[in-house]
């Protein structure tokens, strides 16, 4: 019930503005070239990549011309269908247990908070969860994860600040194996994707999990701030090349940003959005739903 409504609700502010802009567009223009140009701009101002906006609008235009139908409802529905199809080009991964989930991303996107929420999500689904504090770089990141672990009532594996993150991963994996933990969640330090040494550090953590826990299903999720603009593509591309990505967690959807970049991430890079963060509380996390997202987006 309310479960699926929350992504749409979070996007309500977005909905109002994009829908509002489209409404005005329909009132102002006949459906023609100028109309489609402006439709493209509306998508771009929701952070859809320029390339994807062009492609999507070209598709809408083509089908609208073919069908010889030009009314508002038709064009809107067509746009929704195409956007939803784009999201569905990247299928959701099926989560199997035991599993390790490593959360990566640039600084300040909400990795630690996300892990708290994801831990809670699995606890509610009756899974045993351990979190690993492998962000040993940022001041007090370990304490921050500790607070979330307490809130979600899960076990935490941690070392000292400044210690080797791969060592934390190693210990966490050993501990998860020994205890038969269903889900191990690994927090990592925020790193800009252009910093090669930090990306190498991440690859090392990746290798440790692969080597030490081959029987586990290993998922790597990129955490992206919905406020991000076109740079999201570059982030996803570089992180994907470095450690291969199984999904995206889209955070801060409760703001006014639209997160429109996800269309090119699903469409071009074939990385599915798995979770959406819609607030600062433990339960403010939803499984991503393409239909609902598009419904809220337009």
């Amino acid at each position, binding site marked *: 019930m309310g479960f699926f409504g929350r992504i749409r609700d979070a996007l309500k*502010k977005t909905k109002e503005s994009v829908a509002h802009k489209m409404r005005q567009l329909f009132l102002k223009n006949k459906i023609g070239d100028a109309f489609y140009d402006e439709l493209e*701009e509306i998508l*771009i*101002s*929701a*952070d859809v*990549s*320029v*390339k994807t906006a062009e492609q999507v609008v070209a598709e809408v235009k083509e089908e609208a011309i073919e069908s010889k139908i030009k009314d508002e409802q038709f064009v809107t529905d067509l746009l929704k269908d195409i956007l939803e199809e784009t999201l569905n080009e990247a299928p959701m991964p099926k989560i199997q247990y035991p599993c390790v989930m490593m959360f990566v991303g*640039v*600084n*300040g*996107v*909400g990795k630690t908070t996300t892990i708290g929420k994801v831990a809670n999500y699995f606890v509610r689904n009756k899974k045993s969860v351990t979190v690993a504090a492998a962000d040993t770089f*940022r*001041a*007090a*990141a370990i*304490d*921050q994860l*500790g*607070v*979330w672990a307490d809130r979600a009532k899960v076990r935490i594996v941690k070392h000292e*600040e400044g210690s080797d993150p791969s060592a934390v991963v190693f210990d966490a994996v050993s501990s998860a194996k020994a205890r038969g933990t269903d889900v191990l969640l690994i927090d990592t330090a925020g790193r*800009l*994707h*252009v*910093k090669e040494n930090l990306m190498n550090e991440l690859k090392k953590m990746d290798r440790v999990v692969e080597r030490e826990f081959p029987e586990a299903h290993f998922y790597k999720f990129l955490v992206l*701030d919905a*406020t*991000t*603009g*076109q*740079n*999201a*593509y*570059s982030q996803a*591309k570089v992180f994907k090349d470095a450690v291969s990505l199984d999904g995206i967690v889209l955070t*801060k959807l*409760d*703001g*006014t*940003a*639209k997160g429109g*970049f996800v269309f090119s991430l699903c469409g071009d890079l074939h990385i599915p959005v798995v979770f959406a963060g819609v607030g*600062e509380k433990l339960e403010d996390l939803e499984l991503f739903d393409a239909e609902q997202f598009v419904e809220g987006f337009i």
Partner: protein
Amino acid sequence: MALFASLSERLNHIFSKLTKRGKLTELEIRQAMREVRIALLEADVNLKVAKNFIAEVSEKAVGQQVLASLNPAQQVIKIVNEELIALMGPGNVKLEVAPKLPTVIMMCGLQGAGKTTMCAKLAVQLKKQGKRPLLVAGDIYRPAAIDQLKVVGGKAGAEVFERGTQDPVKTAKEAVEYARKMGFDTVVIDTAGRLHIDERLMQELENITKAVEVTEILLTVDAMTGQDAVNVAETFNQRLNITGVILTKLDGDTRGGACLSIKAVTGKPIKFIGVGEKMGDLEPFYPDRMASRILGMGDVLSLIEKAQEAVTEQQAKELEKKMRENTFTLTDYLSQFETLKKMGGANALLAMLPGAGKYKIKEGDLDEKRIERTRAIILSMTPKERDNPQIINSSRKRRIALGSGTTVQDINQLLKQFEQTKVMMKQMKGKGRRMPF
């Protein structure tokens, strides 16, 4: 491919096409401007800002100015550059100091923009200026935020004032009183990240500004922010009448369009930029530098244009070719310095040198005396040495030092600088990802 190209690469690409043509027609300029617009949008420049920008530039470019000019392409670049500066300007705006100490600086912004780290970076900066900063832990919501400020404050060597999870308004008040008593001249208040649409938390910030006399309200914005940057900046500005903006995480490959938009939408200057994770990685914001960086980090064409009066077009073309092919020699280096003298100013060239900001060439390195010395050193080399600096061994160095009245150390320094310049030039034509923009 085009999707990854930075704004500067896009513009350079567009203008290289322009440069290849002779005179420009109105249509061609409009075509170029359409590409500029796409480049700006891909750089996250706000749609409205980009549209206004294009309108203004087109108007100026399509007029007589360009068509009457001997070199229309360069003229277009100049106009684009000027408009970029105008959009982000005026020049570097320093932090205000309160008439009655302590000066109070309040940080604000969305979650994860980098406020806490920035507080410590500001403290380092302030200490360098001989000030005594006090950091105040006003983020009582995010787990361990206070601990984080204590740690980074410790790294910065600044005292941190905290009252646990007490109401931040009260904490701010007590902190200012404490600062007054203990002789701290600047108070930097860290606040919790908040959504601009969170009424309760926005009210909290307003209450802080009512409770203590705040001199600076600095909005911290992630440089990777998309179209929403203007909404955020506009709302914070309306509620708090911010005094400036700090742009963080500019060390990534973000094209930094927020930079162009925020100033245009709020009218408030960008005062600092964060360029790394270390405490010292904070730089003042210079719109002119940023503009030329956006236009291509030492835009060769602007350099040529500036040099036009000093060198012939033929020479300029040769220089451009050498820069592109990386066959730049010490002879060219010297002629650059000679030209520099004619152009009257090292800073003008410095601003255009690729990667100058990144390599932090101190202004003192390019003062007049130094130019004279560089001239003497290069003139004391044989032509062969000037073309192949790698052959300069220690015996040659001693001879050159003797001939130019300098020391071997000076020779080493010059050679090192020359190598750096070459590296910068190489990077300019290299991968865009390596460039700060």
